[in-house]
């Protein structure tokens, strides 16, 4: 895929988002509310016990996690019904007659979307939260760089997950239930609500087998300093292995889905 073309489409998708300014304002309020609710819950929970450390998290650490995992999650906002809508209205036909990869065009569209959310929502929410809540992040340049790399790889994993679920539309056309399932799995098993360390023991082996933890949980642990720099590197390695696995699934699904595709509306 031509990088120039990729960036062009990122910018088109970004500009499209700018037109929905009211959505963005609501998005900031909504995101901040989440942060407020989760941090308040943790504070209330921690105050119930005499011990100050639970599953390796002090109150400061868990509040920092809650704020930062939310920040990453908001930055990872993408429209997961893009493929579904393109199949529904048949406009996917137009994209398929272009000499471009459907996967990468879809990724470019997502990236434009996410860049906008990062600038317009994540940034203000993080800044406000740092002042309002007890947030503590270790300041290390290398750590921050590793976090960014881990986020990018995690982001591609999320995009692949949405691509795979979106492709179900080639078979079923109506995929709303799948999207709901995916949302539930993604937010919970990625550590989007509670860090994986707090999961009950019987769930932990299952979580290890799933790619979700590499999307939000691990990048966040790198940022807040729960993972050492050496661990961060092996996290990124594991993420890359998942990219390969998910990539194979994507291309397999794409190959099989093409044969099933029906263009709606002639």
């Amino acid at each position, binding site marked *: 895929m*031509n990088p120039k073309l990729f960036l062009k*489409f990122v910018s088109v998708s970004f500009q499209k988002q700018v037109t929905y300014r009211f959505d963005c304002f609501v998005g900031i309020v909504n995101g901040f509310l989440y942060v407020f609710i989760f941090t308040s819950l943790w504070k209330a929970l921690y105050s119930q016990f005499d011990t100050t450390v639970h599953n390796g998290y002090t109150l400061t650490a868990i509040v920092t996690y809650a704020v930062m995992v939310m920040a990453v999650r908001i930055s990872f906002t993408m429209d997961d019904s893009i493929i579904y809508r393109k199949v529904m209205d048949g406009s996917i036909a137009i994209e*398929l*007659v272009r000499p471009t990869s459907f996967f990468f065009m879809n990724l470019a569209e997502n990236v434009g979307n996410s860049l906008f959310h990062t600038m317009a929502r994540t940034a203000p929410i993080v800044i406000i939260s740092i002042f309002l809540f007890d947030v503590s992040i270790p300041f290390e340049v290398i750590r921050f760089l590793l976090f960014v790399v881990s986020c990018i790889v995690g982001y591609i994993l999320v995009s692949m997950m949405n691509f795979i679920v979106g492709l179900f539309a080639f078979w079923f056309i109506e995929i709303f239930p799948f999207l709901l399932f995916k949302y539930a799995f993604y937010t919970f098993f990625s550590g989007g609500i509670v860090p994986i360390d707090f999961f009950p023991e019987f769930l932990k082996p299952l979580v290890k087998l799933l790619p979700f933890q590499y999307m939000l949980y691990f990048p966040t642990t790198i940022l807040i300093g729960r993972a050492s720099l050496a661990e961060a590197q092996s996290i990124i390695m594991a993420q890359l292995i998942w990219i390969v696995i998910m990539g194979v699934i994507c291309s397999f699904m794409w190959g099989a889905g093409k044969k099933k595709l029906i263009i709606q*509306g002639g």
Partner: protein
Amino acid sequence: MQQNNIAIKVKGLSKDFDISESGKGFSGKLKALFRRKRKIITAVDGIDFEIKHGEFVGYVGENGAGKSTTIKMLTGILVPTSGSAEVNGIIPYKERKKNAAKIGVVFGQRTQLWWDLPVRESFDLLRVIFRVSQSDFNSQMKKLDQVLDLNSLMGMPVRKLSLGQRMRCDIAASLVHNPPVLFLDEPTIGLDVLAKESIRNFLAEINREEGTTIILTTHDMNDIEHLCKRLIILEDGKIVYDGETELLKQKFVHEKVLEVEFHDDGNVIHGIPGVTVIREQGCKKWLTFDNDNYGIGEVIGTIASRYKIKDISVNEPSVESIIRNIYNNRVTLATPSEESPTK
């Protein structure tokens, strides 16, 4: 190498659609949750044809005959169930991207431009997508602007264009990379007479000047008569005619149409052997009769002797009426033409 002259080669091409139906009403929908009724629809049923470079081919058929499905297989959107197709020597459903770089496609019902962007930016995106150099792009746009008059539209957002303006832009968009083969799926749908005319002229020109191979599907038989030397007629997914448009007339014209203007409009025409009234409008009536079994002099004589005639003229049936007859199975197509594919 004779092969090089072939733009499109289609052999035994078929496409089945697996349609699952949900029942009617709430209970039907509920049942469909557990057991879906599956239905296989054969949209295209083993068709063969070859199109040479520089041909202008009309691809017609009723709604649901399989025209669009064929186009979508040749453009790499759909994967055929069986059979094979080659466009510019490329198998479109195996090498979609490679094929896409060498074809232009216009779907009359949807736009390939970006709804929210000004026309100019859409063209610029297409330039990058198709990897056209800036200088090639400029000269191509200049050429397209001359015939399609695009300059005045360049600054407008696509969603504000009228249908005719949008179609001009869409056709130009399909030609940004100057493809050797152009697929047009109902490009004149919903356009007024003038807009149709200008698009027709443009298509004839690029076919003539650039040697662009054009495959046109349309419901407008005027498009076909004006543009397409060759006609492929599809019915229920099968080819029922493949040959010259002119030959179609000679082969299937067993009827002639008489346009008669009477002195007064009260005349009831009946009892003339072989003649049926197909249309009436005041004093004017259009009659058709079987050309093979009844002589034209005989028919006119009979009419003239019974009624007072003001004016009379003999018309050849249009391609449209011939095709309508084919759709209605009033004409048998046992041996369509010499050019029909042989197995």
